[in-house]
Structure formats: structure tokens, C-alpha cells
């Protein structure tokens, strides 16, 4: 049969499409396409050949291109660029919502829990939820992991702000009585839509949220078991937004998008990636009775449609959903739960801490094991699965899984499939101007979240596939800015700049307004409920959270990376006092050179290329001050020991702009 897949029809137009190899996607995007205007296979073939040829020639160009080693000497660092010091605050920089972590940890240390909560709420919207289940990109980024051993327990400290806050309702902005006349439809009541609503409501937008289920929350409610995220935390933070003045329409599955687009000024789609992948193996067609799609099964538990499961359960998959499935199964009465993972243990997708907790509950994880067949007994009931053992081999420098030939059979009553999820937009008409690309994913602008239909925006998992809550929040903020611009007739490319404030912390001689006496202790682990109790009840939260004493102790581990060392060239007398006092040998006075050589000639060579060098202008002796930001512990001793004040410690408050902050600013001005 002739391959015709590359010729397809979308929005009544015939397209020829060429998929781009994975390695080149950063450069060329997912697919290249060109319209032919008609369904002519011969013409399509020649167009396709043409695209392929031109693509090939581009590949060759990139292969031939060998970047010459830079011969340019280093330039003075421009600290006026707000991103320079932002990048030094590793946790904040890594957070998709750019939450000011050091600031809220300092507020915790001062026992100002409510302030700390509000600071979180402003940027990440769901501190209580994220403080329990965030994917925590901040923690692997945490400087403490480099200078000491383990990162600060940032996520668990976020939970502390929720657990110990006072009433925050009086600080929550409300929708004004006089609306601005613009109506926004938000489809799916998950974190992305809720963030958009929160950002737009105080500006006078009328927001209507459509949710297919009978409760709001999206995957936060349906896919995260309540032993990790209790329902009352979820309800509090969701209804905090709804109560700002959003209209929530439950049990409202949108069947067609066109009428919604026509009725509203703008539409935001935050419907997640709701379709769990199936495993089409031998035997799958025989029965579906005891074979469950993981996320659907978790949803059924959340809505209490499912209350029990067989004694022997196999969970297939190595991601966080698999971890949630196996632990839920244990709580629903299973006594022999196994997780089967195709890849080696070290390459499992699940977060390290979720794997740890799973194993602490006594659930074995069998890695390098690939499912082969579903097995049934005489009565046609599922009785087990056949697997083959795999091994990882290297072929042409690339790692590949390969069968060892060994087969094993594992008995079971139920199988839970947690091998990934996909987006599904059966309800979006194909001819209304919303273009879909590779893997049937909508074509969405990375910056503005706008689809190919100007009124329609995407965010969260529905935009680029499964991510996590904090990304959905970040998308929501950006989409809200775009929708606000769109409804006000402003170009979507005009994004509000981040708000920064760099303020000296010097109070007087030997006095600085921050505490640099950082704890040298190891990371404190969060206390857990006793297994005997937590395994009995699906709703018993496993993690107990830090008590106040532990929280304050852990908060003291934060290195205050937002306390920036700022260098003034003109004041320096090159006495080297800062070089001598620096505990981590970050500060150097060297002759200028190309970056590679400068990095090499520092007291301790700066080998972490992800971290910047802070370079001064030319000093009196012709040398430059070069500080390797990598290991700076922000103790401030350089500034304390500087005789001329050439070093100062300045707190860098960096805040991403969203529509809500604009609104608050407008209010302050008024």
C-alpha cells in the first residue's frame, strides 16, 4: 500500500507534511508543512521531496558549522539586566512561576506565615496544593545541593505557609462590581484555567469556567490520591478563586467549541491531557474487566465509584501515575502489589521522592521488565501477565532496550496501566481555524499561548502534553496577559517586564538587615504517618508536614541567594580582603581573557558552565574582579570585609509580571 500519510486535509486545506527528526526539533520545530491546495498525490510527492531536500541541506549546514573558539575577551557584566541576578537565585529561576523562594523562606523564619503564603499565592496560586504535590523543579536547582549536600526542602516549607497561615480572605482581591464588559470562557476547571480566572477577575473580566465533572480541580482532584493531597486543601484553594467572582459551571462538557467562541470575547482551553494510554498486547481484546487505565481508575476512586480492587495487582509504568496507582491499590485492599517498569530503575520517570515513598510502603518495583501478554483462566477471567526481561545496550552511542529472551509470568487479579497520557480534543471542530500539528497537538505560540485562532488560547497539559501543576500555573499567567492584551487591542508581543528592586542591606557598621548565620545541618525529612495507620485509609495523609520547630530549623538552611553581592569598580582598592574572607573561593582578581581561559585560571576553576561569571570593568592594576556565581553562599562577608564599600549586599526582589500585579500596581498608583 502506498504511503499517503503525509498528505492530509485540515481546515478544508490539503497539506503536505514532513516530520522533523527528534534531534533537530529545537532548530526546525516539530514538522514542516506546505499546502498544495488539492488532493493530488503526485504533486504532494514532489512537494514533499522538495521539503525533504531543503531540510537535508540545512542539516548539512549545521553539521559543517563548527563554532570557532571565541576570541573575544570578557565584557563587564551588565547587572542592570534583570535576568542576571534572577539567574543567581537558582530556585526562583528554575520555578516556572518564578516564585520568590528565599523571600518566603525568610518570612517563615520570621514566623510571618500569612505573608509567606500570600507571596506564594501571588505567583503560584496554589501554595497549599503545590506544597504537597509540586514537581519541585526548584529543589534540584537549589544552590545548597552544590555547596553542601541536599537542597533545602523548599516544597515542604511552602506547605508550612499553608498550614500555619491565618485567615487570608481579607487579602484576596475581588472582582469589581463594575465589570469591563469582556466575557471569557475557560474550559476545564484545572490549575491552568483557575490561574487565568484569578489573574483576570480583579480586572473586571467576567469569567465562566466549564467543567465536565461534578467537582472542580481537574487532574489535581481526579489523579492525585487524597493520601497525598487532601480534598479540603484542594477545595479551599480552588474556591478561593471561584469566590473571587468566577462563574463555575459543573457537569458542563463542551461538545462543540464554535458556539463558545462565538459567544465569548476570548476562550481559554485548559482541559489537560485526559486520555490514558492503552496497552495493545496479546490478550487485551479478550476482556477489559480487570484491566484499568490508570488515570481513569484514579478518577473513579476520587469520585468514589471504585472502592475495592483484587488482592494481587500489577501496575505497569514507571511514572508518578504508576506510583499513585500502586499506593492507592494497597489502600483499597490489595495485599500483593507490584510495579513493573520497562526501563532500568535509574531511568524511571517518577520523582525520586515518590519512588522512595512507594518503596517505603513495601511495594516492589521490577525494572527491565517489558509486558508481553495478558493471561486469562478457563473462565475468561484475567489471571496474570507474561513479561520478558530486558537489558539496556548501547547501539551507536545510543542507549536501547533489548530483550534478554528470559520470560516471566506474574499472577494477578487486576492490571493498572500507567504508561502515559495523551491529549484529546474530539470536541474541537476541525474547520474553525484551530490548527493541529504533530501528534494531533494544537499549534500554540510558546510565548503568548495563542492558538492559530486569535480568540483561542491554550495552557497546561492541553498545550504541549503532560507536564505538572506549576507549569500549568505559569501557562495560565501568560495566557491571562495575552487575553488581557487581546481584549484591550494591545499586541500580544507586548509583555509586561518583570518587576525588580535591588536594595542595599547595609544598616550601619557591621550591621546588615539579613541573617547570614545559615544552618550547616543536613536536610530535615518530613515526618510521616505510621504505615499501619496510613495504609488503612485512602484519605489519611501520609506526610504530616513540618511542625513549627522543624520548619524554623529547615528555613535556617536557606542560603539567601537573593542577597546579591554587587561590586562597584571605582571604589575597589584591590586589597584582596574579599578574596581572603570568601569561604568558597568565588572571588578572584585576574587579567581579562576569553571566557574559557578566565574560567580556568580562577582560584578554583569555574567548571559549571550553567553558572555565570560576574566580571567587573578594568581596575587600577589592569585586572578584573571575577566572581564565580556557582558556589557563592551569600554570606556577605566580602561586603563586611571590604574597606571601601566596593562590595555591597543588595536584596534582589524579582517578580514576574502578571495581570494581577498590574492591577495591584494600578491600585497603588490611584
Amino acid at each position: 500500500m502506498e504511503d499517503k500519510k503525509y498528505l492530509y486535509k485540515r481546515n478544508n486545506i490539503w497539506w503536505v507534511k514532513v516530520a522533523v527528526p527528534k534531534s533537530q526539533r529545537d532548530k526546525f520545530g516539530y514538522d514542516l508543512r506546505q499546502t498544495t491546495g488539492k488532493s493530488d498525490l503526485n504533486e504532494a510527492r514532489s512537494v514533499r521531496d522538495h521539503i525533504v531536500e531543503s531540510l537535508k541541506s540545512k542539516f548539512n549546514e549545521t553539521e559543517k558549522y563548527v563554532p570557532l573558539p571565541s576570541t573575544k575577551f570578557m565584557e563587564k557584566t551588565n547587572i542592570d539586566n534583570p535576568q542576571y541576578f534572577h539567574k543567581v537565585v537558582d530556585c526562583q529561576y528554575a520555578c516556572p512561576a518564578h516564585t520568590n523562594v528565599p523571600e518566603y523562606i525568610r518570612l517563615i523564619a520570621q514566623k510571618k506565615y500569612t505573608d509567606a503564603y500570600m507571596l506564594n499565592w501571588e505567583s503560584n496560586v496554589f501554595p497549599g496544593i503545590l506544597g504537597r504535590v509540586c514537581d519541585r523543579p526548584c529543589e534540584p536547582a537549589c544552590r545548597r545541593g552544590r555547596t553542601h549536600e541536599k537542597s533545602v526542602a523548599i516544597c515542604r516549607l511552602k506547605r508550612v505557609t499553608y498550614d500555619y497561615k491565618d485567615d487570608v480572605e481579607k487579602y484576596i482581591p475581588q472582582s469589581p462590581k463594575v465589570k469591563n464588559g469582556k466575557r471569557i470562557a475557560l474550559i476545564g476547571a484545572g490549575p491552568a484555567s483557575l490561574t487565568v480566572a484569578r489573574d483576570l477577575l480583579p480586572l473586571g473580566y467576567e469569567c465562566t469556567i466549564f467543567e465536565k465533572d461534578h467537582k472542580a480541580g481537574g487532574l489535581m482532584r481526579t489523579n492525585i490520591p487524597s493520601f497525598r493531597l487532601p480534598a479540603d486543601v484542594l477545595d479551599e484553594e480552588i474556591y478561593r478563586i471561584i469566590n473571587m467572582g468566577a462563574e463555575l459551571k459543573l457537569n458542563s462538557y463542551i461538545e462543540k467549541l464554535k458556539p463558545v467562541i462565538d459567544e465569548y470575547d476570548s476562550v481559554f482551553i485548559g482541559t489537560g491531557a485526559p486520555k490514558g494510554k492503552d496497552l495493545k498486547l496479546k490478550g487485551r481484546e479478550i476482556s477489559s474487566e480487570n484491566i484499568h487505565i490508570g488515570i481513569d481508575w484514579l478518577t473513579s476512586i476520587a469520585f468514589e465509584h471504585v472502592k475495592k480492587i483484587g488482592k494481587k495487582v500489577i501496575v505497569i509504568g514507571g511514572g508518578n501515575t504508576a506510583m499513585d496507582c500502586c499506593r492507592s491499590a494497597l489502600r483499597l485492599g490489595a495485599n500483593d502489589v507490584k510495579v513493573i517498569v520497562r526501563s532500568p530503575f535509574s531511568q524511571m520517570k517518577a520523582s525520586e521522592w515518590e519512588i522512595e515513598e512507594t518503596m517505603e510502603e513495601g511495594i516492589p518495583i521490577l525494572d527491565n521488565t517489558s509486558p508481553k501478554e495478558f493471561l486469562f483462566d478457563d473462565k475468561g477471567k484475567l489471571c496474570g501477565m507474561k513479561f520478558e526481561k530486558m537489558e539496556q545496550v548501547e547501539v551507536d552511542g545510543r542507549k536501547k532496550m533489548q530483550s534478554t529472551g528470559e520470560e516471566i509470568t506474574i499472577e494477578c487479579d487486576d492490571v493498572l496501566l500507567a504508561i502515559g497520557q495523551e491529549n484529546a480534543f474530539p470536541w474541537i471542530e476541525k474547520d474553525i481555524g484551530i490548527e493541529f500539528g504533530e501528534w494531533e497537538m494544537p499549534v500554540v505560540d510558546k510565548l503568548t499561548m495563542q492558538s492559530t485562532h486569535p480568540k483561542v488560547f491554550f495552557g497546561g497539559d492541553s498545550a504541549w502534553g503532560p507536564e505538572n501543576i506549576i507549569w500549568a500555573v505559569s501557562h495560565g499567567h501568560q495566557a491571562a496577559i495575552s487575553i488581557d492584551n487581546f481584549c484591550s487591542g494591545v499586541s500580544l508581543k507586548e509583555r509586561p517586564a518583570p518587576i525588580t528592586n535591588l536594595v542595599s542591606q547595609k544598616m550601619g557598621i557591621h550591621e546588615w538587615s539579613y541573617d547570614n548565620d545559615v544552618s550547616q545541618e543536613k536536610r530535615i525529612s518530613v515526618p510521616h504517618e505510621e504505615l499501619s495507620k496510613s495504609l488503612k485509609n485512602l484519605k489519611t495523609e501520609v506526610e504530616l508536614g513540618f511542625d513549627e520547630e522543624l520548619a524554623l530549623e529547615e528555613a535556617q538552611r536557606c542560603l539567601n541567594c537573593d542577597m546579591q553581592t554587587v561590586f562597584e569598580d571605582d571604589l575597589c582598592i584591590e586589597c584582596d580582603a574579599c578574596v581572603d574572607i570568601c569561604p568558597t573561593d568565588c572571588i578572584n582578581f585576574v587579567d581579562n581573557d576569553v571566557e574559557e581561559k578566565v574560567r580556568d585560571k580562577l582560584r578554583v576553576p569555574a567548571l559549571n558552565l550553567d553558572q555565570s561569571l560576574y566580571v567587573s570593568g578594568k581596575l587600577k592594576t589592569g585586572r578584573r574582579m571575577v566572581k564565580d556565581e556557582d558556589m557563592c553562599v551569600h554570606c556577605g562577608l566580602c561586603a563586611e570585609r571590604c574597606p571601601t564599600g566596593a562590595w555591597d549586599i543588595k536584596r534582589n526582589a524579582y517578580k514576574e509580571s502578571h495581570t494581577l500585579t498590574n492591577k495591584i500596581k494600578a491600585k497603588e498608583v490611584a
Partner: protein
Amino acid sequence: MSFKKPINHHPKLETNKLGLTRRDYEGAVSTLCAGCGHDSISAAIIESCFKLNIEAYKVAKLSGIGCSSKAPAYFLEQSHGFNSVHGRMPSVATGANCANRDLMYLGVSGDGDSASIGLGQFVHAIRRQVDMVYFVENNGTYGLTKGQFSATNDLESKNKYGEDNLFKPIDLATMAIQLGATYVARSFSGDRDQLIPLIMGAMQHKGFALLDIISPCVTFNNHDSSTKSYDYIRDHNEAVGKTDFVPLGEEISTSYKEGSSTEISLHDGSKLALEKTDANFDPRDAGKALNFIREKEKEGKVLTGLLYINDLAKDLNETLNVTQTPLSQLQQDVLCPGSEILDEINQSLS
């Protein structure tokens, strides 16, 4: 805010043969004024001990009174120390040196402690060839008593309040050469590349080693009419040539123009490689060295580098034939060898 220096160090910080990092040679956090040259000297001593793989418990730090004499608290926390009466450090060093030849003696003094109240002690320690490194942290001012002129302050210099200095300075380096010190160097606290090899050479040298280190006082003597300020020294510094310390068993890595470098072996087998920049100067010839220093002085330059070295002279303990064993380790049977030996001695005298 705390002034404790965090204990964690850069995870990739170099370690020496003893498995120690530079930070293991530190002391308490300095309480001297921020930017004090003395702190740079402490850092250079730390770096030198680290590079020489010195075991801290085999070092004794001795000092008198003054800002300089506080400095030993800020390096080598695990070494022995003695903070003596003003200007009397050389006596204590002499005694300690005879009592225990196993330790390395670092005397830390200043221009007041050595050139004024302690001058008499200073010259006799040199005359007797006490095996020690004698640091003069020379800032030309009495910093601890609010900035009066010291005996090393130059005639044309003014103090912070604009008053003229009426007396000529004492130059401890030329004085030491004349008195027979066997290792004399001058350096500047702000030039660590020059200072560290000189300290390492002095530590490995047997005999009296004087390091006259100009160390600006940021609080009282770093003004425009000072001749011991950071700016003045940077402008008037003239090095006699580069000195490299070459540890035992290592090759000289720096390349000099042919014929322009000299190697001097130290008693432990390590070497000093000297770059010669002027034909009139030879650090092994005391007369030439003194002339050269005076010539440069007339030109208004401060001559720095290794000024004089003689690695063949006897030290005090050799002259006095002092026992190799530290007195504290001498056992009863050695100290009191018995009547038979006494008889032998008596008979040898008859």
C-alpha cells in the same frame, strides 16, 4: 548578621599531600580593620603552609604587641602560639628555638614592635642566627594607637592629619643584611604572586629569614601623602626579578630568557629560581645587594623581591651544638647518664 565564616568550602577546592585544603590552615576570622594588609599576609602564610604540606602542629607562632602581633590568631589555628611582651618576641623565639629544634618558628612583628621598642631584640636575634621566619608587617604607622609615625615612616611622608614626619626611617632589610641575616626579602601585601614564593623560600631556609612586608594601614596610612599606601607602593614598586619556589623533586616550570635565571638550592633540597633583571644585582653578594637597594632608594623606588640569600651559614643551634632532640623529649637516662659516665668525663679532664 554573623561574622562567622561558614565552615563549608568549595567542593572542588584543591587538597595537598596531607589531604588538607587551604581552609584547614585558617584561624579565627580577623578583627583587624577591613582591608588591612596584615590580613593579606595571613592569607599568604596560609597559602604557603598549604603548598608546603606543613603540619600545623609543627609550627610555633610568636608575636609581640601591635596590630601585626594580633595576626597569628588569624592563621594556623592548630599551631602553637606565644604572644609576648611588646618587642620581646625575638627573645622568646630564641629560647623556644633552642628548646625544640623540631618546630618551625614564625615570628610575626610590626614596625613598632621591631624597629622601635624591640630593636635591640631584633638585632640580636639576627646576630645569633636564630632559625626562624621573621615577618615585619610594615605599615609605617602606629595603627593601634591611632596613627602616630613609626620608625619606618619615610621622611617625606605626612600622617593622616597632615603633619610632617621629622625623622629618617630605619630600613630593617638593609640593617638585617648588614647584621648577617641569611635570607632577606622585601615585598608588598598586595602582591601575592611575589609574596608567596618568598614566604615559602623563607620557611625552607635554615637560619634567620627576614621578610619586610609593606602592609598598608587602610585606616591611618592609606592616604595620598603616605608612602606606604596601596597606590604609592603600586606606583613605586620595583621588583628585583621574579622569584619562584620549586618544591623538592619538581622541575622549574617557568621559563626565563637564557642566562637570566639563577637557581639557589635550599637546605631541604627545594630550590629558588631567581630571574635576574639587572647585572649590578646579585642576591648572593651582600655588598652588591646593599648598593643596589640604595641606588633604587635614590630613584624613589621601593625595591622588592629576594634581596639577599646565603644558604651556607650556621644557625644558632649548630653554633651552640644544641641537641637535636627537643628538651621535652629528653629522657632521664640521657639527662643524667649515671656515675660511670661522670667518672669518664672527670678522668678525661685530669
